């Protein structure tokens, strides 16, 4: 049973056709990596999976994405409720400015109506532990989130996304702004996290995809060239373009 099944997704910015019919299925407890040269529409595609794409003025998307047996592009579906099931971590660490570490983590829950202080405190602790940040910040939860280092900020953003208990976590090149140590911390974290949430991660770093993912999908110019178990994509790609790309003989 897949936890997310995207079928024939097309995405546009105005009249620019950016994503041209990508289909992708992801399994529970797995990390799915999407690789491909920059500008090929990876970000645009995963932003269709939580209906964030359409928030950009002039942008629209077509196709269907089945999560929990429900098409999130169905007619009566509220994008807001979809985004609670599908969390997102961005390329640049972006804790909310002027907000403490604690508030950053629980803001999603608090603004959806959770008022109980004990619940909020325990969710904050659990999410920060899941994001492997708890030990580093437990004594300074009141300090601004922006005062942390880049890697810590990114893990704070992961905790923030986890706190609303999504089923799937989308990550758009989450380590591209980080140094190698911070990067490997986040990579280690993913292998634990996938027990809780399905993970779809965009990366233009092929070594990273090979290290952390179970499934890899290769995209090129808005199309999905091939996808399959990571080991076979990297050792025995079926398509010539994939092989060119992973062996570095590609533009």
């Amino acid at each position, binding site marked *: 049973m897949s936890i997310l099944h995207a079928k024939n997704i097309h995405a546009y910015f105005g009249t620019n056709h950016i994503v041209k019919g990508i289909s992708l299925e992801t399994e529970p407890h797995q990390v799915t990596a999407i690789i491909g040269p920059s500008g090929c529409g990876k970000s645009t595609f995963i932003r269709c999976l939580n209906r964030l794409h359409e928030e950009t003025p002039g942008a629209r998307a077509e196709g269907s994405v089945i999560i929990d047996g429900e098409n999130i592009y169905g007619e009566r579906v509220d994008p807001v409720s979809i985004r609670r099931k599908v969390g997102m971590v961005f*390329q640049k660490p972006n804790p909310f*400015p002027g907000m403490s570490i604690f508030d950053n983590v629980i803001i999603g829950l608090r603004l959806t109506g959770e008022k109980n202080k004990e619940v909020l405190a325990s969710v904050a602790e659990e999410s920060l532990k899941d994001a492997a940040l708890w030990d580093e910040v437990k004594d300074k939860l009141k300090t601004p989130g922006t005062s942390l280092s880049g890697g810590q900020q990114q893990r704070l953003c992961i905790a923030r996304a986890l706190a609303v208990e999504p089923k799937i976590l989308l990550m758009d090149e989450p380590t591209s702004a980080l140094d190698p140590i911070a990067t490997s911390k986040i990579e280690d974290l993913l292998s634990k996290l996938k027990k809780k949430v399905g993970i779809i991660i965009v990366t233009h770093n092929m070594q990273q995809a090979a290290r952390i993912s179970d499934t890899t999908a290769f995209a090129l110019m808005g199309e999905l060239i091939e996808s399959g178990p990571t080991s076979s994509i990297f050792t025995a790609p079926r398509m010539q373009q994939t092989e060119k790309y992973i062996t570095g003989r590609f533009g």
Partner: protein
Amino acid sequence: MKSLKQRQLINTCVHILLVGACLVSALPLISIFTYIVLRGAPGLSLHFFTGLPQPIGEPGSGMGNAISGTFVLLGIASGIGIPWGLVAGIFMTEYRDTRMASCVRFSAELLSSIPSIVIGLFIYEQIVLRMHHFSALAGGLALSIIMIPTIARSTEEQLLLIPAHIREAGLALGLPRWKVTCHILLPGIIRSIMTSMMLAIARISGETAPLLFTAFGSRFWPESIFEPIASLPIQIYNLAISPFEEWHQQAWTGAFILALFVLSLNIATRLVMRQKEPLS
């Protein structure tokens, strides 16, 4: 190539010119303020702050009613103008590319260029004539209209400075747009917004023209917002055009207090700005 001597000479000349330009541009401010202090400070006393205007020759005359009246007017103006301006600013950012937003933006621009006496006349026509008397409410309303465009535009500017991915991070948590704006984006720029509010208040606290035929003025303590009310600028004006030396002194002291108030608001604003948190 010019010789070293020549270049040093040019350097010195330009230096002197620059310092001169600085002095010239600061001169009006410094001289006005010194003059106000020199003329106004001698009239300072306790009863200046606590007393009512008295007939010529009677002791204990003061501008207490005008000072408190100014605060009442500023309170009414802020109570109306700040929320109104905020809402307009938020609207302009949220519905950026709609025709309605451009309309709001354009009207804010027009509004800020309308002479304040015209705004006073408008309120006179619409409120004072209908209520059949001058009132603090009408005065505050006139002042609030002057505040609205300033606050609206600075709210819009500040909101636009927030990187788009911060808003998206809020949306990605499954929050409706308005909650993201009101509970995540606005708190993050609260300092800058406060700054623009303080500047807007400083700007209107010296306005005289729109108060002439709205708040009008009064010789008594403020009692109701539906009655005419005294204010520093109007009282200064009335005292200054009187033929009495004693009243002229009071006018100067009033001007001194008003200038001090505006100056401290501006300095406070600077202090708040200085510790502004960087946006990530």
